């Protein structure tokens, strides 16, 4: 068991290998820090970028995503003890979305596991957590190394994304099914492509050596010119991910390693992720706590809301009725969905109000030229995702 620390502390904010290319396209100088890197929030306008996700192809630099290589004879039992899902079912060249919990069954983080070889995995996470990963490795023959800086990554997402990749020369990329991994050549550089993403749309993630980053960015931009390719920032992606019903760490839940107040931790059962919890696979961290939580029954659930009106219910408190006397939860993520034309939100709601079809009331504050108005809006508990086009799963994807 060994670990390495990437020197992310030496420089306040690192630049990704795509930085120069992205900077050249940035029209509004809107940068935000993400996991120790400077990244772009908005290139031009959020609307333009968002509609490119749903109508064309987008490039999103996800290099800052924290990546760990997990390898060794015990890599599989190690990962199976770490995460709640059964990784034994994950075949080589496949990806699995998963969460991992602390002893109390509360989520530490969510992420994806890439099975790159027989006992060679990559774990992509939102937060750095080598400490937890190494402590989880006590008693396992496994080597864990952070490889965030060794791998550059671009999300290529949108209905024309497959066509763009093919035009760039990735022959056979169209046979990749959702969560498949493939290895290709692009302009003389080896790239790994996974059919994964955070948009809920047709899309891929392209993983490469940082030295090839600019060449691959240029190649994709050239190949996508006639298919409306556009670089996007985090704001547009956030709209797409809410439509897709995906959770954002520190927005829809706070890592159990970071919460201070009791009761602020969230379990996968509460976040509607029971399908990720496999009680039959053997022991994993948090299993005993989750078993008893399941026996007790969920006290609250993260659900989708369809809210009357067109004003996003940012941070709204939720009530049983219009009078607003009994508080039953709050909104974690809210947007006006441009594609669904619905006012949608993700919200944490107490039992029994989280049942699909229940009605709750959202207290929305509106800033009308510095005069605040309060509006109680009727909201219905609905299924997630809000937007799930057939094309996200179609294999091969449609030609454009």
């Amino acid at each position, binding site marked *: 068991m060994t670990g390495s620390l990437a020197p992310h502390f030496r420089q306040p904010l690192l630049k990704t290998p795509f930085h120069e290319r992205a900077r050249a396209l940035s029209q509004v100088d809107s940068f935000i820090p993400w996991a120790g890197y400077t990244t772009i929030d908005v290139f031009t306008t959020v609307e333009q970028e968002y509609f490119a996700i749903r109508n064309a192809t987008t490039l999103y630099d996800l290099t800052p995503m924290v990546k760990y290589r997990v390898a060794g004879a015990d890599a599989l039992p190690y990962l199976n003890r770490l995460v709640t899902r059964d990784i034994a079912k994950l075949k080589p060249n496949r990806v699995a979305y998963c969460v991992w919990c*602390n*002893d109390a069954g509360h989520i530490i983080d969510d992420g994806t596991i890439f099975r790159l070889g027989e006992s060679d995995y990559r774990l992509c996470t939102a937060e750095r957590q080598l400490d937890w990963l190494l*402590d989880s490795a*006590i*008693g*396992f023959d496994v080597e864990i190394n952070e490889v965030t800086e060794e791998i550059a990554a671009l999300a290529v997402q949108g209905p024309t994304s497959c066509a763009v990749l093919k035009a760039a020369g990735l022959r056979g990329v169209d046979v990749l099914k959702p969560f498949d991994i493939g290895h290709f050549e692009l302009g003389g550089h080896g790239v790994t492509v996974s059919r994964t993403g955070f948009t809920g749309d047709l899309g891929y993630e392209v993983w490469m050596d940082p030295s090839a980053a600019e060449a691959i960015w240029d190649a994709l931009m050239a190949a996508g010119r006639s298919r409306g390719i556009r670089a996007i920032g985090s704001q547009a992606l956030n709209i797409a991910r809410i439509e897709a019903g995906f959770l954002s760490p520190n927005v829809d839940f706070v890592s159990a390693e970071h919460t201070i107040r009791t009761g602020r931790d969230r379990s996968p059962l509460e976040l509607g992720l029971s399908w990720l919890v496999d009680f039959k696979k053997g022991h994993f*961290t948090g299993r005993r706590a989750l078993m008893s939580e399941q026996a007790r029954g969920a006290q609250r659930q993260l659900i989708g809301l369809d809210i009357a009106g067109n004003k996003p219910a940012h941070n709204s408190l939720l009530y049983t009725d219009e009078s607003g006397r009994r508080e039953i939860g709050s909104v974690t993520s809210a947007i006006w969905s441009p594609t669904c034309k619905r006012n949608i939100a993700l919200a944490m709601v107490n039992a029994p109000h989280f049942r699909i079809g229940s009605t709750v009331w959202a207290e929305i504050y509106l800033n009308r030229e510095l005069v605040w108005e309060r509006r109680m809006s009727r909201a219905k508990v609905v299924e997630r995702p809000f937007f799930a086009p057939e094309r996200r799963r179609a294999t091969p994807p449609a030609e454009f």
Partner: protein
Amino acid sequence: MASSAAPSRYDCLVIGAGHNGLVCAATLARAGRSVLVLEAANQIGGAALTREFAPGFRVSAGAHLLHMMSADLLRELQLEAQGLEWAARGMPTTALLPGGASVPIGASLSAADTQAYSVYSARMRRFAAALAPIFARTPPRLGTSDWADRWAMLKIGWQIRKLGRQDMRELLRIGGMNVFDLLEENFESAALKGALGFDAVLGANFGPRSPGTVLTLLYRLAAEAAAGASGLSQPRGGMGALCDALSKAALAAGAAIRTGAPVAQIRVEGDRACGVTLESGESIDARRVISSADPKTTFLRLLGPRHLDTGFVRRVNHIRSRGLCAKLHLALDQAPRFSGLSESGLRGRLLLAPSLQYLEHAYNHAKYGEFSAAPALEITVPTINDPALAPAGRHVLSAIIQYVPYALKEGWQSGRQRLLDTVLSLLESHAPGLRASIIGAELLTPVDIEREFHISGGHWHHGDLAFDQFLMVRPVPGAAQYRTPLEGLFLCGAGCHPGGGVMGLAGRNAAQEVIKLSVQPS
């Protein structure tokens, strides 16, 4: 020793036939449980055993004095009826001083010290008596809304409140202090302070100036209070005789004991402990497995982290359990003659810790992976009270060497001989002619103690007794009530409350938890 008709599945398997394992087994068997004790070594006793170390010479190879064994437990298990006899009780303590003098503890004091000593001793006895009942109970869990836990917390608080305003205030004042400051406050005599301070740090990873050493002293005194008024004792036949009596009590109650049966693994089925696999490959089924092995050995080696949560494993891994004591056994062709020591002094315990500064200095070296050229020693000559331990006319010297680091910087290859030479020269300076009378010698470093007694880190308390490894956080939260996160697996060793020292209460408290749970068969 297994009974002829061994059941196919036992109610309880006890791992380890040390005193705690045997007490646990005897208590369970007396409550009607079918019990099998599995001992890795070829003889019972764990670190409370008597064995030969040189041809014809026998010694208590681990602990060499009995002073914490609960009087209630001795009565309950009728150990004297099972053949436990005493070679000595109420043994005196004598301080060996530089320049070859010696002084019995509490004697030859200035008028001020005489007065202070009597006040101090009486007060510490009151504190010890107040704390003693805590030892025989399962510690409460913190932060639960369970009434039993709250009640237990209240009882601890009441025990302390009952001391009265003045004493309670004093207890709370000194509770977090270091023993160096406490003794400096009270006494003038360096020899007295050294000897009293020694008891606060014996077996601990602390110097007298380390925080929490008043707590370790109170712990020792409270355990002694729970043991009754018999003081330092020496069982006839050594510490092994105690475990022989315990095993007879266990066997008489129907338990079975197998020696030479090292456990390789605790077996788990359906997320509960269901038995063990021995190193021989043999599997034994049981409804409950109760381990007297130290927590690290139990959880990390016998059970394995993959049956436990990461946070719990992290806590177990962080238990401070590096031993800091070595043991020296000498076979002598005549009784040692310590300068200025009376015949009666040799019947008792000799301490070489002439001042608090001497102790602190010895500790300083250990902090940096070395041993001091002037270590502190606790010496007994058990053959004075119990001549049968050696051939006629010959003697055994047994010494605990305080502050010998487990991870010696220079390595034990060269360190072993250097330590032996250091201690023998030191002994020679107090007992001239001793070296010439040595027929055989055995030195057990913390690494040897780890190997011989299967204690991870060679720490005879199975983990430091310190504020953060004490009571309801001993060994770690989540396993401090003898139950573990794994259904059916329990701890009963020194790693649990109330801790190390040959006391037996961890074994009994654990057995009572098991009995309480199994009133309704599961």
